[in-house]
């Protein structure tokens, strides 16, 4: 197994506010990793750094041996917390758009997933509900044959049935060459599909562990552990 992602001594400062400090962690290929932490703990900042949207203040990030840039964008599929798509576009147009952009995009897979979730490809984004828009975005992101998927709150806005479908998509899309990093507050929903967790707290890594080790050693679920560690 090779290291797909390595973050060392990573810090990010916004003016006087330190969003992340001294982050060290790595992800092997073939893992599904949960990035968990309370609001404002730095989850989105970390994901943006890995995707190359932000530049670290100090420290380094290597994705498959490359610093974030053109080489890594080809192999990283990123789901942002907010939509960046034009809302006058129809679902089928956006599929064409992604096909032009990414060599690893599988348009047939995207159309198939739209059909499974009963989304009409002729609908404009503008006419879709918030949850449906999120589903469309996730379909686009998961239809790439990427090496690293960065999913920022992929299940936050959708109903429980669609949540199951999305998690199932992540499982069935699994490949030993690729890894998934997903951030969420909905730990109980995702913990069955995770290999490892990274707890972020005030911009620092509070804990990294394999989820079955937590259950074995502590006799409790990841959700219960989270509530204990981050008790308000």
């Amino acid at each position, binding site marked *: 197994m090779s290291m797909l992602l390595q973050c060392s001594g990573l810090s990010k400062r916004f003016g006087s506010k330190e969003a992340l400090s001294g982050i060290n962690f790595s992800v092997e290929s073939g893992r599904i990793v949960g990035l968990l932490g309370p609001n404002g703990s730095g989850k989105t900042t970390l994901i943006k750094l890995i995707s190359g949207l932000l530049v670290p203040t100090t420290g380094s990030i290597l994705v498959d041996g490359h610093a974030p840039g053109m080489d890594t964008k080809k192999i990283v599929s990123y789901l942002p917390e907010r939509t960046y798509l034009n809302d006058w576009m129809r679902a089928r147009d956006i599929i064409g758009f992604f096909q032009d952009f990414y060599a690893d995009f599988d348009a047939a897979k995207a159309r198939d997933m739209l059909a499974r979730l009963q989304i009409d490809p002729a609908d404009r984004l503008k006419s879709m509900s918030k949850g449906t828009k999120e589903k469309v975005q996730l379909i686009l992101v998961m239809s790439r044959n990427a090496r690293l998927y960065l999913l920022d709150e992929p299940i936050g806005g959708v109903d429980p049935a669609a949540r199951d479908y999305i998690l*199932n998509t992540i*499982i069935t899309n699994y490949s030993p060459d690729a890894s998934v990093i997903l951030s969420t507050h909905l730990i109980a929903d995702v913990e*069955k599909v*995770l290999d490892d967790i990274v707890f972020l707290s005030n911009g620092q890594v509070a804990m990294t562990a394999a989820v079955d080790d937590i259950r*074995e050693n502590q006799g*409790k679920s*990841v959700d219960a552990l989270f509530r204990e560690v981050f008790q308000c």
Partner: protein
Amino acid sequence: MAWVLNPDRPIYLQLVEHIRLQIVSGHYPPGSRLPSVRDLAGEAAVNPNTMQKALGELERLELLYTQRTSGRYITEDVQRIAQVKQDLAYQQIHDFFVQMERLGYGKDDCFRLMEAVIEGGKQ
């Protein structure tokens, strides 16, 4: 049978227990082919690595074996399956006595109560 998984216990152990029960109960007959890791993981809604670990454990228990090119099969060794089944039965009975002891019943009391229940059921 639906996959009921408790998040407080290691998932792979629960997968081992679930599949083991399906083998001893004959849901997966001896010598039959097990679905792929991906399909099983999808069905149970768990991580494929976790399912892989569970199947490895079942191989170690000699309930499964891998045919290098064509996948995983249930053992054809029916004696091994019978032995595992009996071990599970003993475990159930042992657990039952432990529970009854907590209620303050000795083994003799248990036999009497069981007879009463069986006779009661006949009426």
